[in-house]
């Protein structure tokens, strides 16, 4: 069974971290980070060519992580593979020991570094959840029998920042119906937006939610997130506040800000975990976790 599933079912508060595989074959820097992160967090998500920028594949990164006993979450998008490739890759991933998947539609190629690539989007993320559920029941997408069952812990994504929110909530509900076991949110800057989503999610008993948070490191980083990452709404007050800070004070502010969100989630038992996104240094994760532990 997936260790992440075990912890979430037990009611543990989980901490996961996002790792973007390298752009190139050199895996040493990634492995060095993983060696440290495995003692700090419960699982590591490997992104699937995020922002449609070509990188080493998530599956290989997951396997490398398994080899050092660090629970991986395979992120899989619908952008680059048709239903044949998706199922084949998922069976392959399972055969390598990968038990957690986080599925999403995926950023469009025009946002990435291979803008002329043909977008696939043969299926969308709701259908993909149903597909993984089928694999778990020993069937392919058409119901044909497989020679066994997978046992994937199925994650789906939701964006509580979305405006208007209702279409997003309806999709959340649909993903839940299709068989999503847990949800990971897009990065959260305002607890009110998270609560707006959680009020809706609470109608469905036992929904496991892991909240995406980010450690702001520089003014440039916040600007990039606000401008370039699809679906992210960085509140104006936060942009203004960071803009007014001295450059050298942004990092400390970023840790404080992320810690406050994390603490709010923990103290008010808003969700079952946090997912630290877009990390650049292991040190940042350490700082954040130290801060939370002190307060806990």
């Amino acid at each position, binding site marked *: 069974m997936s260790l992440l599933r075990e912890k979430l079912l037990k009611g543990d508060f989980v901490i996961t971290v996002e790792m973007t595989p390298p752009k190139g074959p050199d895996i040493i820097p990634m492995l060095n980070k993983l060696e440290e992160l495995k003692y700090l967090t419960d699982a590591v998500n490997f992104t699937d060519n995020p922002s449609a920028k070509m990188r080493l594949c998530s599956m290989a990164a997951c396997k490398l992580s398994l080899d050092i006993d660090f629970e991986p979450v395979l992120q899989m998008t*619908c*952008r680059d593979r048709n*239903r044949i490739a998706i199922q084949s890759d998922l069976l392959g991933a399972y055969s390598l020991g990968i038990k957690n998947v986080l599925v*999403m*539609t*995926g*950023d*469009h190629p*025009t*946002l990435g570094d291979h803008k002329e690539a043909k*977008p696939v*989007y*043969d*299926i*969308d*993320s*709701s*259908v993909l959840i*149903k*597909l993984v559920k089928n694999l778990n029941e020993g069937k392919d*997408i058409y119901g044909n029998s497989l020679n066994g069952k997978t046992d994937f812990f199925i994650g789906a*994504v*939701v*964006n509580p920042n*979305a*405006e*208007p929110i*209702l*279409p*997003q909530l*309806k*999709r959340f*509900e*649909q993903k839940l119906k*299709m068989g999503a076991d847990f949800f990971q949110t*897009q990065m959260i800057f305002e607890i009110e937006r998270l609560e707006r989503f959680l009020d809706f999610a609470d109608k469905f008993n036992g929904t496991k939610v892991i909240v995406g948070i980010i450690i702001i490191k520089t003014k440039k980083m916040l600007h990039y997130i606000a401008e370039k990452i*699809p*679906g*992210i*709404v960085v509140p104006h007050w936060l942009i203004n506040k960071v803009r007014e800070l001295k450059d050298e004070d942004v990092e400390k502010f970023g840790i404080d800000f992320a810690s406050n969100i994390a603490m709010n989630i923990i103290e008010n038992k808003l969700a079952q975990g946090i997912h630290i996104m877009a990390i650049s240094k292991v040190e940042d994760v350490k700082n954040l976790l130290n801060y939370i532990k002190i307060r806990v």
Partner: protein
Amino acid sequence: MIVTKQKTIDEISNYIDQYKSFFLVGCSECATLCGTGNEEAILNLKEWLEKEGKKVTGWFIAKTGCQILGTKRELSVYKQFLDEADCILVLSCGAGTQTLNEFFEDKPVIPVNDTLFIGNMRRLKEFEEKCRACGECFLAITGLCVVTLCPKSMLNGPCGGYRDGKCEVNSHRKCAWIIAFDILNKRDLIDRFYESLLGPKDWSKANSPRHYSVKEKKVEFTT
């Protein structure tokens, strides 16, 4: 209609460099509405060719360039001018160009236009893509064609990338699913829509090349 756009002069020059005489064929249907296959487009091209020292042996505008037999019949009166030309230049869509291609085995048939999409005209000579000819219309279910208007062809609602209701791919364009959602909402169809899952879509209906016979009422991928 099939929306077309004239290629750049540089690209056209590149294709016709080695030829001296030309016969030009336009189309009175979509390409005329697009201004890429009407008399004005033909005369402009003729003027440019002549300025370049080339000869135009004649021109005509097909009634419906994608109608193979009709176009062949119309073209028969131009035999002498066609024979005199080294090359045929077609100011139509890709389908019209290939009608002409069928008639001339040993003479190059060169497209003047690029074929863009199936679309509607909003204002004069302004076109919007509306249909991808996917072979299975979901408009009754989704209110507007999300297969075409959503860059990810999402069938079950928006992705998480929209911002203030705008598409992640083009921030000037409203997310197709936000519009579809409004339509379904106004028609009180949201709950009904979410009772089931749409898809996986049968993309085999969009496999190319397709053949359709009204008599046999059958679309075939291979014939």
